[in-house]
Every structure is written in C-alpha cells, then in structure tokens.
C-alpha cells in the first residue's frame, strides 16, 4: 500500500482493507466525517418522528413510550454520534495539514478511536429493538429514572457510553500529542491557526470530563445491578448526586461541542473578509477562559433542584461571566469583517449565520442563567430552543461551513456555488421556522419531552414541525451537494482554493496528496 491508497479499481478486498486497516489521518478523517453524517441522518430521522408526532395535539403516530425513546436517542445520537465525531473528523483531516505534520502522532490508536464508534452505536441503536424498548429517560439520563425505573436496555446504553468515552479519550490524547509534538519548525503556539488552538483546548476538556461521565454511568451500573446506593436516599445516597456528576461532565461537554465550531468560523471569516483575524491572541485567551469557566458553572442546569441560595447565586454569576470571553469572540469576528473585502460564498454565509444565530442562542442562555427566571424557563421548550440555537445553528452550521470550505482541498473538486447557496438559505430559513417558535412555546409554559400538549400550543407546534421538515430536507440537499461534488464537481488543482485563505493547508496541492509534509515545512 506504500504507493498510494487502494481505490475501487484495485478490487473490493483491497478497498475495504484500506479503510478498515488505515493509519492515514486523511482516511480516518474521512471515516469520521461519513460516520458522523450517517449518525446525523439517523438522529435527524428520530427528530422527524418527534416533530411529526407533535404536528398536532393528541397522539397520532406513535405511543408515548416510544416518543420518550425518540427524544432520548435523538439527543444521544446527535451529541455523541453526529456532532462530536464530525469535529474529530475535521481535526483528523486538518490539524496535521495546518501544523505541517506528516500524520497524527499515534496513527494506529487513531484508527482504534474511530472503529470503536460503529460498535458503540450499533449497541446503542440495538436497544430500540430490545424487550422493554431503548433508553427512555432523556439524553441527560437522570437517576432514578435511569436506574430504578429504567428498562433493562439501560445496561447496553451504559457500556456503549463506556466504549465511546474510551474512543473520545484516545482521540483527544492523540490530538494533544500531535499539537504539542508535531508542529513544523517555526510554528510556535501563538502562531497556530485558531482551529488548532480551539481543538487542543477541546481535547483537554475531553480528557478531563469523559472519565467523569464514565464514573457517572459506572455508579448507575452499580446501583442498578450490584446493590449500591449512590443515587438512593434510602441507603444514604442522593439522586441529586447524579445531576452533579453528570453536569460536571455535561457542561464542559457543551463547550467541547462549540469550541471547534468557534475554530472553524475563525478560519473562514478572515478568508472571505480578506483580512487577518482581528485579535488573534485575545481569541486564544478567550477560548482558554471559556474552557476554564466551563468547569465551575455546572449547577446552573440544576437551579430548580433545591440548592441553597448561596449556590444559586454563585452558579448564576459564574455563568454570566462566560458571556465576557464569548463576547470577545463575537466582537472579534465582527471586527474581522469590518472594512474587509467581503464576498459571500457558501462557507461565509454559514459562518455569518453562525455568528448571528449563535449570539442569539447565547443571549437566551444568559436569560436562562438568571436563577430566579429559570424557575419559569426550566424544562420548557425555551430551553430546547436555546440549545438548538447553539448546537444546530452553532455547531452544525459551522460544521457545514467547514465541509464547503475544505471540500475542494479534500477531493480536488469544486462544489456548485449556486447549489451551496440554495442549501444555505433552505437550512437557514427552515432552522428559524423550526426553532424560533419554540421560544414562544416555552415562555408560554409548554414543557419539554412530552408526547402531547394543550390546545393553546397547537399553532406554533405546527409551524415548528414544518420548519423542522424543511431543515431536514436541507440536510439531504447537503448530502446531494457533497456527492455531486465528489462525482461530478469541476476539478480544481489550485493549492489555494480561496484567494484570501492563509495557512499551511493551502500550500499543498488539491486534492491533498495521501501523504503530506513527510519532511516538515519551514513556517515563518
């Protein structure tokens, strides 16, 4: 295989073993990206089932028990199967190219990190076909719903989480080792592209909190099967302990999802503004500050659980503090665009939409951080709307931007700009139709995770469902665009696909050769 990767022309066996046995960061990046897109469609299908059921009040399509499994699996598959692996895929593809490394630091472990995921998600998805159904306790799997009252399949969920955690930890260690050890001569830390910076901080967060998640599910496993009483007050435990442990993982987790998205946008906006990123070092420090703060704010997810007032106040103010470094980032993106020679290709459109909609989601987050107000918002559709604005319009939009931005570099073909822009507008409009009304529903008091609702919520639910289907359609358009680009796209061999692009990844030919930077480039 030393002469280049096997293609289909070499026969099925060679082609399959290329992907299964690969140690190449580009192949593994591609695997991650396709896997995450498959999971995105699966989680999306679950979302479509949810929105179809909620189209009208009353139960039409599915049973409430199945609805609960759908909300749970939608969340789990999207967070752990779609968004996280998508950014790991981008990291695999781009970090070695951006820092001038021949590959990831530990290539075989890299392959293992990926191939654990299909097993983990096969196990997780198989629970839907088990007796008693799949996990039905929400993606946050609060005890005792996920322990005392859980179906047997919860054990499969627990072990699936265990091995996908192992995958995440190995993947993150690999990224940290790559960035710390494999930078080209001259690439000092403060010259690294921001995508690399955000990822190395993300990897640090992952190594720190995935073991805590493993601890949380281990405690569940012991409580369910071996008689311990971590989450059972009868034995001296406390269900609230679960929430503390879970959110100590869970809050950094939301930054694990969004920080790489920040990185992507910080690469794209300067390119299409034809200006260097405004305030590079403040971006780095802001990212680090957000990561640090993410460890000390977890209980703002638990304002209604009965914490002492001092706890409520502390977590409220600490949470509000996050708006400061986040504001630094938003202002830097805007200032980068200020007086730039802007053009609005698809990646730029998605990035600008990211800045606007993510900021909007950030503001609703700020509203939720007010402990007193959260008593009203807690567990309503307002929360659902908030985190979909930051997860979908944040992470997914920036992931989509990244695909359009780097696709020519990956496959040496240019996507169809018109099709890209059409997809953007469908996604943008569909997204807002789907999730904007959920703010109104939440403020009016509609609780989340219910299969049915009162008549007063009917109109906006119908609107929201229509938007969700439009947005789902936009993802099929994305798939279509990517496949059409790979198959029939206009070939491009330019090293620099975008005239304003800077960085080492734009110094190698398009498509990027199978092996790049076997000897480290000189970086000035």
């Amino acid at each position: 295989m030393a002469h280049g990767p096997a293609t289909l022309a070499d026969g099925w066996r060679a082609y399959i073993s290329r992907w299964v046995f690969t140690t190449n960061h580009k192949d593994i990046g591609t695997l991650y990206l396709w896997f995450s897109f498959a999971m995105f469609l699966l989680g999306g299908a679950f979302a479509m089932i949810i929105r179809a059921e909620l189209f009208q009040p009353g139960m039409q399509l599915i049973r409430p028990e199945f609805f609960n499994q759908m909300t749970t699996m939608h969340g789990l598959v999207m967070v752990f199967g779609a968004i996280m692996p998508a950014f790991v895929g981008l990291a695999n593809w781009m970090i070695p190219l951006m820092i001038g490394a021949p590959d990831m630091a530990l290539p075989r472990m890299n392959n293992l990190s990926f191939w654990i995921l299909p097993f983990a998600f096969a196990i997780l998805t198989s629970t839907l076909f088990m007796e008693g159904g799949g996990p039905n306790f929400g993606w946050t799997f609060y005890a005792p719903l996920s322990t005392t009252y859980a179906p047997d399949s919860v054990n499969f969920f627990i072990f699936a989480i265990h091995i996908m955690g192992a995958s995440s930890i190995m993947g993150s260690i690999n990224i940290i080792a790559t960035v710390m050890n494999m930078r080209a001569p001259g690439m000092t830390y403060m010259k690294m592209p921001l995508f690399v910076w955000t990822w190395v901080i993300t990897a640090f967060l992952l190594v720190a909190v995935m073991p805590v998640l493993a601890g949380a599910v281990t405690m569940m496993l012991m409580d369910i099967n071996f008689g311990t009483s971590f989450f059972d007050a009868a034995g001296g435990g406390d269900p609230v302990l679960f929430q503390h442990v879970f959110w100590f993982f869970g809050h950094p987790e939301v930054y694990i999802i969004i920080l790489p998205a920040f990185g992507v946008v910080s690469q794209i906006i300067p390119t299409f503004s034809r200006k260097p990123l405004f305030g590079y070092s403040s971006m780095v420090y802001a990212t680090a500050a957000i990561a640090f703060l993410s460890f000390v704010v977890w209980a703002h997810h638990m304002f209604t659980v009965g914490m002492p007032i001092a706890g409520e106040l502390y977590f409220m103010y600490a949470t509000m503090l996050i708006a400061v470094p986040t504001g630094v980032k938003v202002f830097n993106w805007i200032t980068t665009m200020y007086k730039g020679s802007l053009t609005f290709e698809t990646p730029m459109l998605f990035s600008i939409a990211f800045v606007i909609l993510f900021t909007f989601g950030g503001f609703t987050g700020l509203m939720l951080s007010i402990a007193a107000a959260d008593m009203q918002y807690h567990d309503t559709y307002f929360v659902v709307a908030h985190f979909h604005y930051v997860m979908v319009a944040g992470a997914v939009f920036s992931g989509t931007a990244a695909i359009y931005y780097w696709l020519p570099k990956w496959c040496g073909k240019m996507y169809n700009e018109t099709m890209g822009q059409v997809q953007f507008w469908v996604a943008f409009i569909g997204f807002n139709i789907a999730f904007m009304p959920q703010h109104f529903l939440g403020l009016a008091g509609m609780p989340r995770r219910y299969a049915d609702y009162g008549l007063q919520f009917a109109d906006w639910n119908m609107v929201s469902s229509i938007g969700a289907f439009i947005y789902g359609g936009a993802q099929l358009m994305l798939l279509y665009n990517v496949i059409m680009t790979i198959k029939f796209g206009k070939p491009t061999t330019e090293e620099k696909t975008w005239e304003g692009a800077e960085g080492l990844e734009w110094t190698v030919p398009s498509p990027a050769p199978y092996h790049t930077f076997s000897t480290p480039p000189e970086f000035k």
Partner: protein
Amino acid sequence: MSTESSYYVPEQSKLPIVAATGMGLMAYGAASWVIGDGNIVFTAGLVVMALVMFKWWSTVIDENMRGMANDQLKHSYVLGMLWFIFSEVMFFAAFFGALFYLRVIVNSWLGGDAAIGIFDDTPTDAAVANNELLWPGYEAEWPPLVTPDEAANGANATFIGPDEAMSFPGWAKLLSWLPLWNTVILVTSSVTVHIAHTGLKNNNRKQFVRWLGLTVLLGLIFLVLQAEEYIHAYQHMGLTLDSGIYGTTFFMLTGFHGAHVTLGTVMLMVSWFRSLKGHFNHEDQFGFEAASWYWHFVDVVWILLFFVVYVFD
C-alpha cells in the same frame, strides 16, 4: 520539534480493528451478562482484547528495538502516557467528589442538620421536614452504621448498615490495622521502583532487576491483603456493597484503586520480564518509565484514599 530522521508513520495495521471488535464484544457481553446470559460473549471479548494488547505492545517494542522510533515519536508516547494518567486522575476525581458530596452535604441533609448558611448553622426547615417525614430517626454520622432506610423502616429496610466500619481502631490496635500495613507496603513499593529506576540510569542492571522484582512482589502482597480485607468485611463486619452509602463508597473507591493496582502490577511485571531479557538501558527505558509513573499515580491515589476513606471520620 526538530527531527533528525523522519517521523515513523506505521503502515496499515490489523490491530486496531481487532481491538475495537474486542471492546464491542466486551461491552455487549457485559451488558447482556448483568441482565442474564452474556458471560461467553464477554469472555470472548476479553480474550480478544488480551491477545491484541499483547500483540500490539510486542509490535511497538519490536519497532523500537529495530530503531524505527525516533526521539520525536518517543516524545509522543510520553505525552500519551501522561495524558492517559491525567484522565485516570479525573476518573478518580468523580468518585472522590461523590464521596465528599455524600459525606458532607447529603448526610447532614438526610439527618435534618443541613444548615442555612456558613454563619448560621440553624437547620433549614426543608432539611428538618425531610428528616422527619421521610427518614424519621436517622441521625447524620460518619461512618453511618445505620442507613436512613433502616432508621425509618427497621427490619423491613432494603439497605442494612454495616456492623462496624473500616475506620482507625485507636492507637492500641494500630499494628493490627490492615490499611496501615497496606499504606506502608504501597509507599515502600514507590521507593523500590524509584531505586530500580536509579539503577537503570546508572547502568546497574542487577540493581534494576532486583528492585523492580521486589516492587512487583510488594504490589502482589498489597493485592492479597486487600482481598483479605474484603473477605473479612463480607464475612465478619456485615460490610458489603449493599450496606448503604458507606459500603458503596468504601468498595467502589478501594475497588477501583485495587483494579488500578492490578493493572500497574501487570505493567511492572511485563517490565520485569523484559528486564530479564535484557531490554531497557539508561537511554531507552520508556516502557518501564511509563509503568513507574503509573505506579506512583496509584500510590498517590492510595494515600488520598487512606486519609479520606479510612482515617478521617
């Protein structure tokens, strides 16, 4: 960051996919096992994992012996090990954090003692009501020999507290207190592994092999004593996994520590066998060093455990 020779990027490898399959089998098997049958699938996964790990590390050692690993690659291994240990620290942090929360906050809440504030230690109405309505008769104490369930429901309780705890038995019985000896053994083993390391650095192979062997022996003694302690707890103290929160935290913390000691002992044992075969020299010793770092890590965890689980009541 400079490279004197190019970084070794391995060719395609069958190891990872076999390892992933093994992990998948173990996960699926374990989940099936706890609700019924699955022990065969789990065992199959375990065997696959054991074989693939043996093969994987043999491959890495072999590559290193053939000089394929340059300094930069070795540094990647160092970083990998250090960050792996950091992830282990965080795993224990979850359990230590849980212990802290359960002992300091939950226990006083269940006992109706949860105070209004730092400066005003009047119990809150909610805590008092919680105690009186749900767990009448439960008094907050640590170690809790009576569970809230037991206090409220007597003999009908699901969770029955232990007869005695593992705590410090008083100065008179100090020398027959097993945890103290375990502490002595583990701290000593950290010293012996350091002496072995010094021997290796000074090219004194005899010192290296002997003191490393002694470290492995101490690790094994620790594990035997720990097993003895567990048997004693189950048979004579009524202290089990289901004896309420004390048994829960005691067995989970010491149990996970014991599992990590086992892993560390295996790592040191492998290093010892390799040392007998003449592996390692004062320049090339990462396999052993990684094992010794891990050993120091489990030692530090034990010292923390010793104080928060055994000593401080």
